[in-house]
């Protein structure tokens, strides 16, 4: 019972955050809803006994990725274009597709007869470390290369090279 209550405590905010982002118009507010969602998912990890993962989720995601996104919002917030909304036809179509996808997936999930395996006991970071350096050594090395490449690539890409063209196309300034 208590487990169910805690699950709801975390699950409801994630969905609310999603809906709020869909309906909201303010970008900064959207970013904060994202942070709320990430923290709630982190809470769900704690609930499932994945403590290490929960901590990582909050540290990397909330501390890193979300803040990065907020920075991105601020860097590009000099919003010159008018309201960026999709057309009405697209909205209707999207709603229909989303509902169909949701319905189909929920139905297919509901059809599955779950076989309860052994419940994994809460684990220590040491076990995760063994897993990463053991079975997942190959992916781990790949991930490190990926991070390096992403870092270099981002540094290269973000370097301003071309003069900025204002939307009127009249005056050119170099950032």
């Amino acid at each position, binding site marked *: 019972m208590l487990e169910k209550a805690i699950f709801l405590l975390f699950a409801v905010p994630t*969905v609310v955050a999603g809906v709020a982002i869909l309906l909201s118009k303010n970008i900064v507010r959207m970013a904060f809803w994202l942070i709320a*969602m990430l923290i709630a998912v982190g809470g*769900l990890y704690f609930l499932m006994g994945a403590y290490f993962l929960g901590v990582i989720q909050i540290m990397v995601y909330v501390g890193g990725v979300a803040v990065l996104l907020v920075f991105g919002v601020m*860097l590009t917030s000099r919003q010159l274009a008018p309201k960026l909304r999709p057309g009405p036809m697209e909205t209707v179509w999207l709603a229909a597709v989303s509902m169909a996808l949701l319905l189909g997936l*929920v139905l297919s999930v509901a059809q599955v007869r779950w076989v309860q395996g052994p*419940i994994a006991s809460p684990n220590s970071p040491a076990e995760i470390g063994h897993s990463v350096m053991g*079975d997942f050594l190959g992916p781990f090395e790949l991930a490190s290369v990926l991070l390096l490449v992403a870092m270099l690539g981002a540094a290269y890409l973000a370097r301003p090279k071309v003069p900025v063209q204002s939307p009127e196309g009249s005056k050119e300034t170099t950032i």
Partner: protein
Amino acid sequence: MMGPMPYVILSVLLLVLGLAIVISKRNAIVMLIGVEFILNAAALNLVAFSRHGAGDLSGQTAALFVIVIASAEAVVALAIFLNFYHRIATVDIDRGDQLRG
């Protein structure tokens, strides 16, 4: 004792919400937010099955990799969008329909 079912349903919800955000928002950075939703939906699934199905740590480790890849993706995508912004001074993703550099 709850099975993995509620987690999977929640993950479906997150997936559809993320997809809707990615498609409906024309602001490039908000699209990234939608992608984060989708990635979290996947990771939630992995952890839930790791706890209730497999009974070992492989799902959690995979979720760890999801976080790694999500951060890498966010960094690169942001860099691309900043470049895009520098070039045509907007974050409206629909303006990027030239299919050329």
